[in-house]
């Protein structure tokens, strides 16, 4: 006599998932002074704003999940947002089998487990996508604050460079600076 059985299979997956996004831009520094001198001015400005020098010569600052890296040699700025978390997903599946006909318990168990693993992988993929979107949202949110800061850095470095250039040309008689508009007026006696 044939007997029906019902089995329950439980599968779980634990993964560390990461989502990241980054953009790069170039600081438009005018060549008022030689590139080495402009790089030095930029380094000084970056140090003053909390950027740390790394062994490879770049400057980085981490604001939460966002890392800003500036290469003072060529003015490249890379902004990178990273998100990571450990995710555990679990699923339970059930199936029935007969002890005398059809697939054996082992086969049924394997089939259910395989199905569950596929579903878990899809769930992880969805989680990964969400994390990716979160990283993009964090990056986009940070850009709004970073853009004016970069503009200020460029402006400050350019003004300093102009002052040094003016001092090379002659004697500076007067300097008027407007921090709001960024205007700089200098009178030089050559």
């Amino acid at each position, binding site marked *: 006599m044939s007997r029906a059985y019902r089995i329950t299979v439980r599968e779980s997956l634990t993964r560390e998932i990461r989502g990241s996004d980054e*953009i790069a*831009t170039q600081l438009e520094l*005018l060549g*008022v002074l030689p590139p080495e001198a402009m790089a030095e001015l930029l380094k000084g400005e970056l140090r003053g704003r909390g950027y740390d020098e790394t062994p490879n010569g770049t400057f980085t600052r981490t604001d939460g999940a966002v890392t800003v890296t500036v290469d003072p040699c060529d003015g490249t700025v890379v902004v990178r947002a990273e998100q990571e978390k450990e995710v555990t997903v679990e699923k339970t599946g059930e199936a029935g089998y007969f002890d005398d006909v059809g697939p054996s318990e082992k086969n049924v168990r394997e089939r259910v487990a395989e199905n569950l693993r596929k579903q878990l992988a899809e769930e992880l993929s969805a989680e990964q996508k969400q994390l990716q979107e979160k990283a*993009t949202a964090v*990056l986009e949110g940070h850009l709004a604050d970073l853009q004016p800061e970069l*503009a200020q850095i460029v*402006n400050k470095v350019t003004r300093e460079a102009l002052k040094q250039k003016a001092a090379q040309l002659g004697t500076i008689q007067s300097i008027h600076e407007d921090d709001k508009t960024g205007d700089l007026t200098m009178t030089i006696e050559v």
Partner: protein
Amino acid sequence: MTEAPFAPPPVRSVTLAEGHLIRVARAIWLMDSMELARLLTTDRPVAPPCLSPNAVELLQESFRKGFLRRWMQDGAWQIGTFLHQGRPRTGRVYEQHPMVEHPWGFSRNAITLLLWLATTHPAGPRPAWELDPNVPLTVADQYFVLVVYRLFRHHRDHAELASFVPIQENPWVRIVFPADFPQKPMPDFRNLLQGPASILQEGLQPFLEKTLFEQEHRKQQSVSYQQIQARGEAETETWTTFCEVMHRFARPDLAQFLFRSAGRILKRNRQLDFWRRGFPLRHDLRLADRLKIERLALALPRMMEVFSGWEEQSRRVSFYDEDYAVAQWFLREYEEHSGAAHRRTLQQLLQQLDPLAARPLNPPETEAL
């Protein structure tokens, strides 16, 4: 003295299949897509094992007349300035180059392509169009390939045509339709630099300029991000390679169409909205990928960066340098067609794309006291 009486041309007899072939050849050269559709939707005859002398003569006449007519319609009648041995010369292409001095003939390869298009194979499916290994493609054959490809681009035979190696290696097909051949090896654009190919290329400038401009307008239709990326990459690679070759061999005149079409499209569309119109509204892409794709969508206008580089190099060429006349010609072309203004427009577009674009609040002004 009496004039010779008018003698009508002799009536030549051809078989039905040969007649069909001749009609298809004429429709192709006339680019009569309606007639071609009619001819090719009816039952295609079986390819004749050989052509009669009458058919060969009529086909030769159709190709000879069709070629010249199509080339003129593609713009060869227009007056242009081109470099000849490093010196600019202005005029119509066929006035600058005595046509009889160059071999304009078609080889049997053109006829085999025509047979492939117009007939069926007696033993079932048509075999791929392959070149006769002993007969190289002539320049006229290459132009025929371009005309055929233009005409059949929306035809059911298109996919098969695009898979043929001689079509993938055709420089004109690749310049006009780069996105149809992603990741295929680049054709040798040096073939366009000399002899009849360079003459044909000079005459094709108006066609190339018009086609690229129109395609750029048409392509702003809604497509997927993947398509925009694949197209942008293929366009950038093809046109950059082409420009490199033309620049290296001091023939910037043969790339006029690219400079002018990029300028025209920038002049007409100064706002980023035009380039983004038709983009799918998907926010699940990484910002990095989104920006990369948006830059790739500007493949044609971004060619202006290449020409701006040429302009800077040309300014450094002194009057005692070998390429002085070439450099001066390019500077004149750049100025006449507002290259500097187009470059500024492009820079503004690219800055709009860059969410972090940082620059001095006010560019410095110096005032002499």
